[in-house]
């Protein structure tokens, strides 16, 4: 699975996710990536793209929940990502990247590593795999 989340200079957020799904999956199986609110979500607050155990991400409506805890619990982006990864996955394994409309970037995962990269206008840039 691959994904990208962006907030532009006008504060507009967007997310996109694309995948081949699971190795050896049944034909016709649909995972989280195409499901809006599960693997992909964007609103006026943030944008989120998820990857990992599709069935767990779907059950946890993971991407929408990041926006929901920001909206209803007033959490900042990284706190919202950490909360959802910690509280919404049961024993599932997943990772996600996210941006907020005020130019923050965040990620979180409870798997062994996640291929990710992030950058902000003030010059921050990071590419990583492990914790």
């Amino acid at each position, binding site marked *: *699975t*691959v994904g*990208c989340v*962006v*907030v*532009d*200079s006008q*504060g*507009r*957020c*967007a*997310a*996109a996710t*694309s*995948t*081949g799904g699971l*190795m*050896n*999956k*049944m034909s*016709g199986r*649909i995972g989280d*990536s*195409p499901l*809006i609110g599960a693997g*992909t*979500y964007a609103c*006026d607050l943030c*944008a989120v*793209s998820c*990857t*990992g*155990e*599709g*069935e*767990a991400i779907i059950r946890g409506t993971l991407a929408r929940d990041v926006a929901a805890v920001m909206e209803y619990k007033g959490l900042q982006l990284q706190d919202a990502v950490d909360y959802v990864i910690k509280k919404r996955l049961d*024993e599932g*394994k997943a*990772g*996600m*990247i*996210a*941006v*907020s*409309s005020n*130019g*923050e*970037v965040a990620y979180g995962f409870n*798997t*062994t*590593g*996640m*291929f*990710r*990269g*992030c*950058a*902000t206008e003030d010059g921050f840039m990071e*590419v990583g*795999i492990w914790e």
Partner: protein
Amino acid sequence: MGGWAIAVHGGAGVDPNLPQERQEQAKQLLTRCLNLGISALRSSLPAIDVVELVVRELETDPLFNSGRGSALTEKGTVEMEASIMDGPRRRCGAVSGLTTVKNPVSLARLVMDKSPHSYLAFSGAEEFARQQGVELVENEYFITEDNVGMLKLAKEANKIVFDYRIPALGLETCSAGAGMVESALQMNGLPISIYAPE
């Protein structure tokens, strides 16, 4: 208001034994995609166009599980899916079950912009792709030797395995790497190991 920001991912759940050169390849691809997005943002491209541009690049490179290099079904074929969402008015588009569309994320974008729906799948999505004139290729284009090897492993273990980037070494070494998770954990009443990450 803050400035622009961007993040990309290439999947979660990495083989702990992934050799250094494969890790370097992954970091180079992530860096290339970040720079592609950054220059688009500096040219004031809107966020929705930037995410599509970057995911297309990731789909075209065979390194990660999407587009070319996608995981294989139990039949050894590729069935791809993608979605895209534009925050300001929460417009969205999604596709599933694609077998010939070179860049699934761009078809998802067309579902959002050019169809009255938000999700098209399988034969309907393929027909829409033909109508829209997007680039179509044979299913074989998406299949890589690495993934044929991974599928063989998965079938031998009769499992849906973690989508680890398998080490460049011989297959016999990656049986330790492929994440066959023997776990007592249950989810939805099934052993959690079948819910391998993508």
